[in-house]
């Protein structure tokens, strides 16, 4: 389960906020009411491929891919491809009157630099959208496009493309396992007071392709993780931000873990995903999460390395970022970058930190 | 010895060719004494006076003023010489038209840093200018203007006064009165006086009289 839900709305609300404006305040504004938007309900079963597409009656939604890659040159890379949808009002209209706003974020992380790009578009004009059958999510010349064989899930095989001022990538994603429904059959709780979202993932991608950074092309391969989530009122009013992990264990298992920070102890949730896609929710009390190293990033202090302990799974690992300064200096800035971990288990993953 | 000229020569170019107007003049003026310089029109009296006043340079020869060689002075030194050492009185009165009589009289003294109100008052009384102090030059008669010009020079108490026909524009009676005044006051001020005149009657009243003829001094 994934607290990124909150991000998209923040993007719109703070599009105009000046940089340096108290970020935690900006995130705190997410606790607003749903205002005519639909609210996720426990027990509604997700159906595919239609739920791969957009849900314009919900306020926010995204298609979120992170990839841990290794180049032929032996270097590690991270790649991010995200399309956010954020509605000013529920529903769609044709032309410029459409209330949907689309936001694309793309990034490539190397061990010494973070390359980012951001795209904005309004709906209704075809500049950005998500279509199903065949599946394609796009904004401008960025695309996430299905080339899955007939009969397979549309998200099984994807082509992923994005570019920015000094980077570009083109990746092929092939899934080695099933879609994973997060939370309670896709209904993911975000706070003790009941805020929730629909949330499913495809964490089993094998990725391969080409990354071009500052004019140099590198053939890469590795693993990737897709999150799909939509909601209308994801954060409780006292929640200020989150720390979110997606981990690929070397043995093929996966772990999704997040902590929503608030003025008290916070809300922690995790989901253990076996290599066949079977999931086990881990309760808040069974997880111990603590920062082990702080770094100064973009004028703030962020915990870039963490110790994660889940005694029930005999897990005690410490994460380290590929690059401390994996800062997304987009209109709403946050930290998002590839990590590695070691301890009782080893592997790679992604860390996202917002609201600092 | 305040002023000493030796072998001073001066040539002018005119449309009719060059004229050597001074052909080796020797002249000595002792401190506090007065000398009359006479001669015919065009004999070079005024030229000699201009040279002595630092208004012009000689072609050759030496002009010693208090032991300093005038002919080698720069423009700035000559200006200072005129300001501090010399007082000039011309046939034309050369008053500053925009200043009133009082300001004209004290003008040179102020320039020479020798402004002395008491001495000035004495001068004004003796020159009979008291009732004209607030008038402007154009409101005065010729004799009055010349008295102002003399007053201006005397007020500055220069070591050397050079006067070029100062009474030339005045009638005889006025001229005599003005000259008397100038002589006696120059004595009081301790100034030497070189007076150019073509009148031997006036010349006789000075300590010494010299004649400029053929470009040379003839006693």
């Amino acid at each position, binding site marked *: 389960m994934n607290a990124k839900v909150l991000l998209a709305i923040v993007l719109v609300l703070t599009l105009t906020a000046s940089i340096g404006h108290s970020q935690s305040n900006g995130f705190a504004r997410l606790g607003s009411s749903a205002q005519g938007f639909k609210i996720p309900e426990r027990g509604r079963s997700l159906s595919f491929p239609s739920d791969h597409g957009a849900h314009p009656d919900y306020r926010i939604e995204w298609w979120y891919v992170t990839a841990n890659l290794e180049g032929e040159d032996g270097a590690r890379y991270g790649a991010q491809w995200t399309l956010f949808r954020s509605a000013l009002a529920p529903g769609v209209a044709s032309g410029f*009157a459409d209330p949907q706003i689309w936001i694309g974020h793309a990034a490539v992380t190397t061990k010494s630099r973070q390359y980012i790009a951001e795209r904005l578009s*309004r709906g209704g004009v075809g500049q950005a959208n998500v279509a199903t059958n065949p599946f394609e999510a796009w904004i401008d010349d960025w695309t996430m496009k299905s080339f899955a064989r007939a009969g397979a899930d549309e998200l099984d095989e994807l082509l992923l493309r994005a570019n920015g001022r000094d980077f570009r990538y083109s990746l092929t994603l092939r899934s080695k396992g099933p879609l994973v429904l997060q939370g309670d059959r896709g209904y993911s709780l975000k706070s003790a007071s009941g805020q929730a979202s629909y949330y499913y993932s495809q964490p089993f991608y094998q990725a391969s392709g080409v990354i071009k950074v500052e004019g140099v092309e590198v053939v890469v391969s590795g693993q990737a993780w897709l999150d799909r989530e939509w909601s209308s009122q994801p954060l409780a009013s006292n929640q200020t931000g989150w720390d979110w992990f997606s981990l690929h264990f070397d043995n093929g298992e996966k772990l999704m873990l997040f902590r929503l920070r608030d003025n008290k102890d916070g809300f922690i949730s995790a989901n253990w995903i076996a290599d066949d896609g079977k999931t086990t929710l881990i309760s808040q009390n069974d997880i111990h999460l603590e920062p082990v190293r702080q770094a100064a990033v973009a004028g703030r202090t962020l915990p870039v390395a963490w110790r994660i302990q889940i005694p029930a799974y005999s897990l005690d690992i410490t994460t380290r970022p590929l690059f401390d300064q994996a800062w997304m200096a987009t209109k709403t800035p946050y930290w998002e970058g590839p990590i590695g971990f070691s301890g009782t288990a080893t592997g790679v993953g992604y860390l996202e930190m917002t609201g600092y | 010895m305040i002023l000493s000229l030796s072998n001073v020569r001066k040539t002018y170019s005119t449309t009719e060719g060059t004229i050597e107007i001074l052909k080796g003049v020797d002249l000595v003026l002792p401190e506090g004494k007065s000398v009359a310089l006479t001669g015919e029109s065009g004999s070079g009296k005024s030229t000699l006076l201009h040279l002595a006043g630092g208004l012009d340079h000689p072609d050759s020869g030496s002009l010693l003023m208090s032991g300093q060689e005038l002919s080698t002075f720069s423009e700035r030194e000559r200006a200072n010489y005129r300001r501090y050492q010399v007082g000039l009185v011309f046939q034309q009165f050369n008053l500053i038209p925009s200043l009133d009589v009082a300001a004209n009289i004290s003008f040179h003294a102020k320039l020479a840093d020798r402004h002395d109100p008491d001495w000035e008052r004495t001068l004004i009384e003796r020159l009979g200018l008291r009732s004209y102090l607030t008038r402007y030059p154009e409101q005065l008669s010729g004799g009055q203007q010349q008295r102002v010009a003399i007053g201006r020079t005397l007020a500055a108490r220069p070591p050397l006064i050079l006067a070029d026909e100062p009474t030339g524009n005045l009638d005889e009676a006025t001229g005599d009165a003005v000259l008397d005044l100038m002589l006696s006051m120059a004595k009081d001020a301790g100034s030497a006086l070189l007076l150019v005149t073509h009148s031997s009657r006036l010349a006789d009243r000075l300590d010494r009289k010299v004649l400029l003829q053929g470009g040379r001094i003839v006693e």
Partner: protein
Amino acid sequence: MNFTAFEALLSHWRRRPLQLLTLVTGIALATALWSGVQAINAEARASYQRAASVLEQGALRQVVAKNGNGISIKTYAKLRRGGWDVSPVIEGLYRFGPVRIKLIGIEPLTMPQEGQIGSITTAADLPDFLSERGQLVVSADTALKLRGRTDMTIKVSDQVPEDAAILDISAADRLLRVKGKISRLVVAPEQRADVAPVERISPDVLVQESADRPDVSRLTDSFHLNLTAFGHLSFLVGLIIVYSAAGLTFEQRRGTFRTLRSLGISLPALTTMLVIELVTLALLSGFLGIILGYFLASTLMPGVATSLRSVYGATVSGALSIRSEWWVIGLLIALVGTAISSAQSLWRVWKLPLLAAAQPRAWVRASTKSVLLQSAVGCVLLALAMILGITSAGLVSGFGTLGCLLLGAALLLPGVLVIILSLAEPMSRAALSQWFWADTRLQLPGLSLALMALLLALSANIGVGTMVSSFRLTFIGWLDQRLAAELYVTAKDEDEAKRLREWLPRYSAAVLPIWSVEANIRGEHMQIFGVADHSTYRDHWPLIVADRYAWDMVALGKGALINEQLWRRGDAELGETIPMPGEWEATVVGVYSDYGNPSGQVIIGIDPLVAHYPDVPKLRYGIRVPPAEVPSLRQRLVTEFGLSEAAIIDQATLKQQSRAVFEQTFSVTGALNVLTLAIAGFAVFSSLLTLSGIRLPQLAPLWAMGIKRRNLALYEVFRTLALWLATFITAVPVGLSLAWVLLAIVNVEAFGWRLPMTIFPHDWLWLGAVALIAALMSVFVPVWRLATINPADLLRIFADER
């Protein structure tokens, strides 16, 4: 004690306050005119810049539709998906009640941050801007006009030009009812390197470089060139005053200079004092001049703003802001002007021999050689003017012609006057009249500068006056023909328009639709009008050139009429077919005059207009009705039909409004014209005053020989009148040449119109009378002085050496 000497120098001014006044006035006027005109230009340019950067994102490239029909949303999406960073704009004119506003609908999410608009929208509260209710970002003035006329929220920004509003593209789409037709796409300066060419992605659009678009600042260049030319002319005239005043003061103080030097003030010290004196005077007068210039500019600015708006469609604020650079530039100009006009006098002081006698007349004595040289230069300039005038194509060479013409004529003037006077002299036999001519010739060098100034001012007046009057005559005549309908009505919406079309024919002779669409033709934004096939047009519309069956062709939908601007620009020729928006073509069958319009215009038949552009707003109508019935129809329209009074305008009012716009256009030129003439009059006055001060020695012998003072004074008056007359006569041909250049070269370039030149001798009489009064006034003080002079003063001439 150099201070004492300095005081003595300055004491001159206490004795000659009038001279001080002349000098100060000269510098102040020159500075005022210069800085005033510069201020107007700077203010207007700032407005254009604001307009260009905000309205058109002037610095950025644009994508436009080839056929002028607008760009579809589909094309926009294709370009975006092809990697082009472009942002859509929907714009057009919209009426909020009686207030016409240019709407600029932008898409804030994709708008490049490089343009002005980027910063406007970032600063705006985006949720409000994008909200369904909509938000208008406007200037403070426009906000006032819109109060109570819209439900949209209004936000004030000083970056938005007058009469324009920035709003979200969806709101603009809705208000302008363009159904997603995008007017243009703004191209971000930075683009992906490997992006495919625009035409390959979508063949119906093309990229327009920023330089390709006609921009308002280029259009208005001519207007500013005009102002600048007047500013420079006045500056020149002002300098002439300073020159003569400075020359006089230096000459009069020559004796003082000499005395000071003989009293031991060195030449460098004296020169330094004079320079300090001049600099102080220049700074003080410059300061005065800048204040004067500011008031001048702020008085003229509203007129300038109005004419720029009406003639060029440029939005310029009528308010003037004080700019700090003015003070610097104004004072600098005062210093430079003073330096130029007193350099000669200073040089003379520097070269002044210590023993030379004062020659008060020396400075007015110009050698024959210099008059000859001056005349030769004048001839060369006139020849150059002629060559430029014949070969001239551009605006700059047009103004070059003007400059050469004026300067050449001015330089030639003294030579011409000398010749006239030399001819007059032997013709007069009486001793006194011989003296009169000889003496006048002697005075000439001292007066020639002032006379040159007068010539410049008079020629400019005649030239500009002829141009404006010719224009007025043509314009009014054209207006009478063109505004043929007796009443003009505007419906508030299509429903009311429909009812009008049904109601009106019952009460009128004819109802003529006045419908237009805005479109791009050959890359230029212009209006396409439709006309009904009615005798009103056939009889009243003046065509400059036309096919025989022009109106029939138009009615048939095959022909189009284009306005003179479009034709003169060479964008279309008679008989040529032009591609019309909506994929059809029309043949140019005639050209009509269209004064007061900055852009091109096309007229087609009303039926083809509706056929090709079914969405054309059908709101405006001209109504033909016997003149006697106008009031009753008007009444009926309001009471019976229910049309609002504001929606009806009669011919007379419309004509009056058009004339007011016209008069406004030239009011600035007129004001500058009058000012220039006034300054030239002052130059003559100061020169005469100057001369009168040194005239006494010349007149005293005549007086001694038995000429009465009164007669001497009369001679002075005659002399002034003779010189004035000669100058005025010279000014007529120069002024007419000037008018020809303005009408035949400058106007065609600047406005796109050529007008027939008409001569107005009555105007010259009036101008001559004004100049005569100025001449008489200028001679009055010196003559009065002469006539009342104390004989004792004349006597003293003989007593004093001068």
